[in-house]
């Protein structure tokens, strides 16, 4: 029977079929951060259980840890107990921790990729909904809650309802100034925020195949915004090149054996998907959100949609979103003044994102009155960017240059957008209050973010030349 890649990954990790369409799955890599793991460790110890497989468990500090330069555990007082509790838990249970100050510390999904923790054909879980980022390697990677973190700590397995396979085929060459973030925002615009609920998404097509690993990660990252826990890309030469010589990638004969297996990891040509979505991106423009769900996306030069253009069941939510965002129906977003620009998060904080942003920022200046931050996704990204002089470009232009972490994505640490302020952000969620109470978020690419920072208004990066 022809199989999808998802079927292969699932059956390769299936320990037992349980009732209700649920499988008990083997977990190959468990990545842990300071916030969602805390209660899991507490409960684990209260029940007198041990960590089943500490050598398959990896930890770092990212969510609540401050990204201020020169930070310590105590820079953001609210985070101190989480940071120290994770350190103590890793110490007690023999888990490798990439701690504050470690050259490999970073946002879970960014550092895990750099270390080669997510291998093709592996299963990876983390107590963070954006774990599908690592599906870019042809891994089955998904986000879990704290009870599931505890279950994985205790058993190195997880019971999971089997989702249906969904393929999203993306075709076409991207225009200049149009980047992977625009592709995933375009997918959200066309198919909506529930398209992936109950599904595992395989991203395919010529556009995806042409992308380097970091672009694939940006796309897989926002699978959860489509409602899907799982999103992945079949591994190919691009994947293997990236992984070769990574810290936790196999070497020598083990590499050869792994590679032979990895080359078999693809969907059969005649495999049946429960659903297929097609998108041609050859005419795609830079994308930006106007509202308060990640599906509220328009071309950057389009007006905010009018009420009449939306289906009736959206009308109440539309009025709330327009009011919250301080917009008027039909107005053009371009030209609307901006207070904050955030370049960072597990969606867009890798070296290629910073290189692209720096290309536009070079020789330009952040507009007066705009606070603009660049927050690298990992300490390794930060150091690599500094070796290339990108930090100097950003600083000269008036951007803050930060330590690695989640920063302004989620308003849990000391980086919060003030009430009523308008922020163009390269992160993944524009929910009400996501970046702080009353904060107004517009999701966009790093290029659009730089264009907005420089203009002090929402601006199209393709007009910057």
């Amino acid at each position: 029977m022809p199989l999808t890649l998802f079927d292969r990954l699932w059956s390769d990790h299936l320990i037992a079929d349980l009732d209700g369409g649920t499988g008990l799955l083997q977990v190959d890599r468990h990545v842990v951060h300071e916030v969602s793991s805390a209660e899991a460790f507490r409960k684990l110890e209260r029940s007198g259980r041990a960590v089943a497989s500490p050598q398959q468990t990896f930890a770092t500090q990212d969510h609540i840890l401050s990204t201020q330069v020169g930070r310590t555990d105590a820079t953001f007082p609210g985070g101190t107990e989480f940071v120290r509790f994770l350190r103590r838990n890793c110490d007690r249970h023999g888990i490798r921790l990439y701690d504050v100050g470690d050259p490999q510390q970073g946002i879970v999904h960014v550092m895990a990729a750099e270390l080669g923790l997510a291998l093709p054909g592996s299963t990876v879980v983390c107590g963070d909904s954006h774990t599908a980022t690592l599906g870019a390697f042809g891994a089955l990677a998904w986000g879990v809650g704290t009870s599931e973190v505890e279950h994985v700590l205790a058993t190195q397995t997880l019971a999971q309802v089997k989702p249906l396979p969904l393929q999203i085929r993306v075709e076409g060459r991207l225009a200049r100034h149009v980047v992977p973030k625009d592709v995933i925002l375009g997918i959200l615009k066309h198919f909506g925020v529930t398209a992936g609920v109950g599904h595992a998404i395989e991203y395919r097509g010529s556009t995806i195949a042409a992308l380097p690993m970091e672009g694939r990660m940006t796309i897989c990252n926002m699978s959860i915004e489509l409602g899907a826990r799982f999103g992945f890309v079949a591994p190919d030469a691009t994947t293997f090149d990236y992984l070769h010589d990574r810290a936790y990638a196999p070497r020598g004969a083990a590499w050869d054996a792994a590679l032979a297996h990895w080359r078999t990891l693809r969907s059969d040509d005649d495999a049946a998907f429960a659903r297929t979505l097609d998108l041609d991106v050859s005419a795609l423009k830079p994308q930006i959100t106007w509202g308060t769900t990640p599906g509220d996306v328009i071309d950057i030069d389009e007006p905010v949609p009018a009420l009449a253009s939306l289906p009736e069941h959206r009308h109440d939510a539309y009025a709330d979103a327009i009011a919250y965002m301080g917009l008027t129906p039909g107005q053009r977003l371009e030209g609307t003044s901006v207070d904050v620009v955030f370049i960072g998060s597990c969606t867009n904080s890798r070296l290629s994102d910073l290189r692209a942003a720096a290309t536009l920022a070079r020789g330009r200046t952040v507009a007066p009155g705009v606070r603009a931050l660049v927050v690298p996704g990992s300490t390794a990204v930060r150091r690599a960017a500094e070796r290339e002089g990108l930090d100097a470009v950003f600083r000269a232009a008036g951007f803050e240059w930060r330590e690695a972490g989640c920063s302004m994505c989620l308003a849990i640490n000391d980086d919060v957008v003030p009430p009523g302020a308008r922020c163009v952000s390269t992160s993944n969620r524009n929910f009400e209050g996501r970046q702080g109470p009353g904060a107004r978020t517009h999701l966009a690419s790093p290029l659009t973010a730089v264009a907005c920072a420089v203009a002090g208004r929402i601006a199209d990066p393709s007009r910057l030349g």
Partner: protein
Amino acid sequence: MEPLVTVTSVVAPLLRDNVDTDAIIPAAYMRSLATDPATGLFARWRYRPDGSPVPGFVLNTLPFRSAQILIAGENFGCGSSRENAVWALRGFGIRCVIARGFSDIFRENAYKNGLLPIALPALRHARLATAATRCALRVTIDVAARHIALPSGETVPFDLDARRQARLLSGADEIAETLAAHATIERFRAAHAARAPWLYAVEATDATAHPQQT
């Protein structure tokens, strides 16, 4: 986990779509291990910036202040995987959320904490939503029977697989059950390690030496 057999309560209508977990509990209420998650439940809708209650918000009004059942719209619990969202609902006293649909992670987190997520098809959902909005609708949810009993005596069936139903009724510890399958798991791991030894021989080489690639 506290078992859930039946719950009888007024149904609080919160008929919005895409109620995300940042709305259910803002991150600001996750900054201490000592914070009671229930204090952050729907904080931005429930409280004014000065901390006083928003009078019109459903859970601030009688008789919904003690509601154990909530009815919402589509895609409830989307966004962040934070289990604090479920802890906040449970801490407030909610045992069941009825919606058009749920995010996959929220649904799983809910079951793990004895909170029953009931997804209803459009017509059945609309009837209940209308009734709950019109007056204080009191219903009984029966997990064993897999139905919602209305005051009229009529019952509305809902889907719930046998495995989750049994766990809700018993409150059994899922981790203990998995650990009891130790032999099966070890057998699997031995076979898996033979097929894919690189996933088990975990040893890092010098990570910092690697040049950055994109």
